[in-house]
């Protein structure tokens, strides 16, 4: 992916290629507690996957394993066929150096539940930081690109503000723009609306919907069942560190086969 090209004014997604995500038999445990218990998941390029399930079911951990914020003890994740955080060495998986892992993260956007914007930087600098820090763009170009992204999430007018001067919904929209700054092939959302007041949820979901329509691969951990139904191509239900059921929204949300799915949906709907 070459971002250092002169076509910055071209449409935003011009050189962003959606990427496939494959999770191969991932196990993760803390002591005796199994957080992920053999997860296999394939997300096709451009597909929008919603992961639902009760709290403590391992949804967020799975997301954090995908961009290697957490390392699994067994199994691995690959992005467009390339393992994340590890490489094959004589038939075994070997951990990459931190520098290599950081370089891979540029291909994976991550949006946190609590936004985690950098409070000491302006909105514009929050978005422009990654392209500058990784040497992909020089500062003026990065700022122009950041403005473009902020306009896209409807935050162009707040470029000079500091994050704490914004509402939760506005902060989350900036966080999405920041995650887009390196033109990732896949974006992971970890309960992006859970920390928001109910009336602010809509503006964030609208931005995610817009992203889904643009053809980027999205993996969204969410409690918004209605949103999952509307946006997702596929819904994955997790419980106890396992995927119990997956399929189209109509299959999983309207005719759940697994009794745990039925029980969960009856409680949240």
């Amino acid at each position, binding site marked *: 992916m070459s971002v250092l090209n002169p076509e910055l004014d071209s449409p935003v997604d011009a050189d962003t290629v959606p990427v496939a995500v494959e999770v191969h038999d991932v196990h993760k445990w803390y002591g005796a507690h199994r957080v992920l218990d053999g997860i296999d998941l394939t997300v096709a390029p451009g597909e929008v996957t919603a992961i639902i399930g009760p709290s403590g079911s391992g949804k967020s951990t799975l997301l954090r394993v995908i961009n290697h*914020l957490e390392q699994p003890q067994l199994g691995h994740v690959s992005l467009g066929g390339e393992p994340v955080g590890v490489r094959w060495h004589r038939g075994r998986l070997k951990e990459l150096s931190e520098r290599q892992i*950081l370089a*891979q*993260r540029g291909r994976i956007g991550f949006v*946190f539940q609590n936004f985690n*914007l950098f409070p*000491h930087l302006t909105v514009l600098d929050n978005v422009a*930081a990654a392209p500058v*820090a990784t040497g992909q763009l020089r500062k003026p170009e990065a700022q122009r690109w950041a403005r473009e992204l902020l306009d896209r999430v409807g935050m162009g007018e707040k470029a000079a503000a500091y994050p*704490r001067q914004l509402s939760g919904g506005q902060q989350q929209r900036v966080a999405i723009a920041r995650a887009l700054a390196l033109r990732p092939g896949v974006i992971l959302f970890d309960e992006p609306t859970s920390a928001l007041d109910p009336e602010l949820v809509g503006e964030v979901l609208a931005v995610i919907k817009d992203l889904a329509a643009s053809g980027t691969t999205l993996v969204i951990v969410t409690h918004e069942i209605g949103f999952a139904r509307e946006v997702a191509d596929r819904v994955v239900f997790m419980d106890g560190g396992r995927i119990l059921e997956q399929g189209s929204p109509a299959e999983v949300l309207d005719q759940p086969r697994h009794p745990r799915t039925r029980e969960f949906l009856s409680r949240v709907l």
Partner: protein
Amino acid sequence: MSDALVPAVPPDTARPRDTDPPPQAAAAPAETTSTADARSAQRVIPLRHPGRWIVSVGVLVLVAQIVHGLATNPFYQWDRFQYWFARPVLMNGLVITLEVTAYSALLGLAGGIVLALARLSRSPVLRAISWVYVWLFRSVPLIVVLLFLYNFSALYRTLSVGVPFGPAFWHFDESKLATDMVIAVVGLSLNEAAYAAEVVRAGILSVDQGQHEAAAALGLPRRYQFARIVFPQALRAIVPSYVNQLIGLVKGTSLVFYVSLLDLFGSVQSMGSTYPGDIVPLLLVATVWYVILTSVVSVVQFYVERHYSRGALRTLPPTPVQRLRHGLSTLIVRVRKETAS
């Protein structure tokens, strides 16, 4: 405060306050008077605190007495104070104090950052070394460190860089390298680094874990993560504690007198032994200069803290200058209103 004091000023003699009902209420037209009365009857009369006034007056009298004593007691010899205040011999000492403070503060902070990073690193060896260093230099009195360094050249005549127990590549002559200034700065920096390490570590730990995660998730290079994301936020917690440390250092430099460096205190001390009659004004001169240095540091602290609170506060607090300007302008408006009516 004793209740017996309260009747000394009966509440009804207390002067009217600006919270009392405005005088316009009385001048209102007749038919609205009753509603105005009803409203002023609703107005809560604030509790008077006559005891507070009495105590304040007592304290002010005490302060006035102390000031009077300072100004008129011939013991302080204010004429000699004036004579000594800006004497070149003391100014040279002041410059030495400033130099030692500046070098030690910078080297100490740099050492503190390195020690804090070592302490927070994933390497158990680095963590242990950092811990032992801090433990050792916080345990040994500064004066002992300084005197030990002063006698260091007797212990090791030359310093050399090379392989332990193996060949040496580079030799220093200790006596040429270790001037009094170098000994003072090295001693203070070694000591300062131990305390600065804890201040910096506390600051780094105060940064939200989510910030580290966000920086890592964006794939920012490690150096950038620390220098641009974590450390600037840590500074908000580091600055007040480090300034505390710095003020201690300004005064701590007075110990370099014992390694025969004539700093401000040292030159006061040596002048005092030459002119024993002037020892009190000389000590006053030292006191006033140390107060001035500390005040300058405090003013700088205010502006540095303000700088690093960008983004942490929704609006920055006004600077003293802004506050003064605002106070003056409201005063002028008020005076104009009063004179107009």
